[in-house]
């Protein structure tokens, strides 16, 4: 989350600004990336930390340092279990921040990392994670410049929490702004959704479910660069749909630009196994977290070029046009089917809960 440029009214000191968050206590839902998270950010953090009228909240902030724009972002990783098919908390921590910078139109130059470690954590586990981060950073082309460590009592921190903060320079040739989205723009998705969230759910071992599935964690920077190179002037908005899934990201966009996001169900890429797991549990793939995909909204003139560039780039072969921007239903995400049916997909409230009814 971050704010756009704004001026503080002189009358209100930031620490005395009024807040709008009325929930009496913090619940798990507030961290799930959906409606509750947004309420917390917009109602408590934004008024106090970002000043009045912060503008749409993006993945990264652009800070002007004497005329040079630097992109900066931060993210915490509290995943459990910390190792899962396809990756671990270390990779998530690197790729997640690199991706947040990428979809804001920036190349990550350096990360700093902060570890909160649980007392009793076996050293080999920590070492494995740090090696994983080193490898992920090398593969993502970013250096890890500095770090910090704290240790907390046994029973806290679920073995470890990792926070990474990244800075980067702007790629140029692109302006990411939800307010630039227009009717007729196309919505593109870089690849299949749901892999990461379902992998984690299965890795927790609480369900009697097994599947040959891996987290999709990776740096999307090369794909983002390919899109910008081929279609930069037509790119309006990008986002990596992590917690809360693609539905939440697109709902935020719909709200920020006041237009409708109409998706074509048969064109949304989802692996069979993810589909099967979602059907079994009563979940919607659009609400499931991803760690290696991104959404991009492109003007119609540049849409073909963008899709082409994605499909040709390594790891982008499954990219699809999944929908388009329309005037109605305003501020809403609508999924349509080939036979003319449609349903509204809302933002997630809290974590997706499996259902039996």
């Amino acid at each position, binding site marked *: 989350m971050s704010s756009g440029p704004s001026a503080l009214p002189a009358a209100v000191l930031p620490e005395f600004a009024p807040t709008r968050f009325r929930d009496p206590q913090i619940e798990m839902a507030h961290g799930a990336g959906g409606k509750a998270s947004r309420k917390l950010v917009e109602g408590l953090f934004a008024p106090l930390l970002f000043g009045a009228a912060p503008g749409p909240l993006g993945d990264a902030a652009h800070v002007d340092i004497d005329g040079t724009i630097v992109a900066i972002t931060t993210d915490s990783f509290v995943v459990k279990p910390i190792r899962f098919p396809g990756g671990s908390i270390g990779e998530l921590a690197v790729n997640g921040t690199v991706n947040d910078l990428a979809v804001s139109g920036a190349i990550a130059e350096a990360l700093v990392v902060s570890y909160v470690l649980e007392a009793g954590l076996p050293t080999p586990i920590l070492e494995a994670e740090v090696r994983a981060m080193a490898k992920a950073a090398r593969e993502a082309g970013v250096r890890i410049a500095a770090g910090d460590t704290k240790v907390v009592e046994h029973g806290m921190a679920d073995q470890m929490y990792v926070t990474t903060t990244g800075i980067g320079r702007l790629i140029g040739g692109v302006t990411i702004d939800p307010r630039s989205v227009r009717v007729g723009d196309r919505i593109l998705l870089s690849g299949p959704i749901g892999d990461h969230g379902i992998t984690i759910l299965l890795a927790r071992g609480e369900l*009697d479910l*097994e599947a040959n599935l891996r987290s999709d964690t990776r740096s999307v920077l090369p794909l983002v660069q390919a899109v910008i190179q081929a279609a930069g002037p037509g790119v309006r908005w990008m986002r990596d749909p992590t917690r809360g899934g693609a539905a939440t990201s697109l709902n935020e966009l719909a709200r920020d630009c006041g237009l409708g996001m109409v998706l074509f169900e048969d064109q949304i890429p989802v692996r*069979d196994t993810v589909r*099967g797991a979602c*059907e079994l549990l*009563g979940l919607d793939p659009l609400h499931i977290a991803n760690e290696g995909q991104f959404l991009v909204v492109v003007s119609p003139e540049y849409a073909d070029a963008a899709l082409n560039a994605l499909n040709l780039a390594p790891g982008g072969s499954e990219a699809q046009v999944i929908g388009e921007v329309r005037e109605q239903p305003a501020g809403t995400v609508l999924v349509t089917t080939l036979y003319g049916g449609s349903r509204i997909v809302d933002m997630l409230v809290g974590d997706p809960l499996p259902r*039996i009814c």
Partner: protein
Amino acid sequence: MCLAIPGKIVDISPENQDSAMVDVVGVRRRIDLGLLHDDKPVVGDWVLIHVGFAMSKISEQDAAEQMSTLRMLGEIDGAMQEVQGYGLDEVN
């Protein structure tokens, strides 16, 4: 009450005949066959799964019949339209 999914039995535990592994497009889940004692399924059968229990065997024949009934709907409709084209109006 109503979320139930078709799955194919790929394994029945030798130690416990009520414990079976089903496959749903590559997702495998252990389920309980305890409610199907009157009509025990075998490996390869399809069952309807609800809250980890098999509720019923799925009849491939009935499913196929249903599909052909549905396809015929369209054909009957097409035939009706042809008949209407001959001036024999259908009373609606």
